[in-house]
């Protein structure tokens, strides 16, 4: 779901950078309000590594293959740290592996980072009660993990459909994009399930990892 270099009009690429710049500033400002802003950096660094490597692990889903994005998981565990972590992960993916691009880094970060923040808000909103039943907790984790991916995929589809260059066969490209939506739906189910597995595992093994400040 990484938009490569040269596929976006300059206005869209610049708008993406503007949104990413604003969201990064907002996230860092929120992080600085923590009592110890560096306390969550080890956690953020390790999840950045997971995010960075996840793009290299391909899961074959016909007609092509997918790779996990993990933005929902990052949002739940990292909170506001998720956005800068995704920005750094995407930068290294673009520079080292050519996944995405430097000109499209702003758009790609906004596309994956803002749903991560929304997953964080959504998860906290669902847990606002005194004690939430374990099943409801799992469902909300699944919805946050899968929903973040679906939101990113929807943004990707909207951006790519609205920026099809006039020289291309728009119908052929549009049909290919619609066909890819099936793959993204399956990916959302996988991401949601994977997020639930990780969160349940961490709750049992190291529950303090999941303690991030409330939004």
């Amino acid at each position, binding site marked *: 779901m990484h938009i490569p270099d040269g596929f976006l009009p300059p206005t869209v690429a610049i708008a993406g950078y503007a949104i990413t710049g604003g969201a990064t500033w907002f996230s860092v400002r929120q992080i600085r309000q923590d009592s110890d802003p560096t306390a969550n950096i080890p956690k953020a660094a390790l999840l950045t590594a997971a995010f960075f490597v996840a793009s*290299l692990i391909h899961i074959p889903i016909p007609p*092509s293959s997918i790779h996990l994005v993990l933005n929902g998981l990052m949002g739940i565990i990292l909170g506001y740290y998720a956005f800068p972590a995704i920005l750094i992960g995407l930068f*290294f993916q673009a520079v080292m*592996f050519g*996944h995405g691009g430097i000109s499209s880094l702003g758009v790609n970060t906004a596309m994956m980072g803002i749903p991560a923040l929304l997953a964080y808000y959504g998860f906290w909103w669902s847990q606002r009660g005194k004690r939430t039943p374990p099943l409801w907790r799992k469902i909300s984790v699944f919805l946050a993990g899968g929903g973040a991916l679906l939101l990113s995929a929807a943004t990707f589809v909207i951006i790519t459909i609205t920026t099809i260059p006039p020289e*291309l066969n728009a119908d*052929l*490209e549009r049909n290919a994009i619609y066909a890819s939506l099936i793959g993204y739906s399956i990916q959302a189910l996988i991401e949601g399930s994977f997020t639930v597995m990780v969160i349940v595992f961490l709750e049992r093994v190291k529950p303090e990892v999941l303690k991030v400040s409330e939004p």
Partner: protein
Amino acid sequence: MRYLLLGVLTCVPVLAGMGEAVAHGSNIEYRQTEAIQITAKYDSGTPMGEAQVTVYSPDDPATPWVQGVTDEQGNFTFVPDPDQRGNWEVKVRQSGHGDIISIPLEEQEAETASTSESATITQATTNTTGYSPLQKGVMAVVGVWGCVGTALFFLRKKGE
């Protein structure tokens, strides 16, 4: 003389009929030329079948020079204009994914091709990074180690 004229007149429809017969026939000409074949694949190795290809010439990189669609194996072949030397940009796109590759067509190659009169097929893939799986693995380990090192650094600071 009368017989000669009759002979000429009878020949005309026969010749006309022959002309029509030639028009219905087939004619195949060939010339050897310099072609560029690209192979587009996803990172997983799956071919990008039926992806849209747009080729831009070095002289006019803003206007598509030729367009087409890859075959099921992700292959697309085009014959560049031998007079236009420089970087031919090839963009392959499918469902918002794809890549752009720059294929240099050097002056020297043109001389070689014209003197030896042999066809040159240049092969290239859309993998812009061009790294082997081992190189990618090493880079991934380096990237992960950078993140782990950052985590360890901040943990150490916290422990002091």
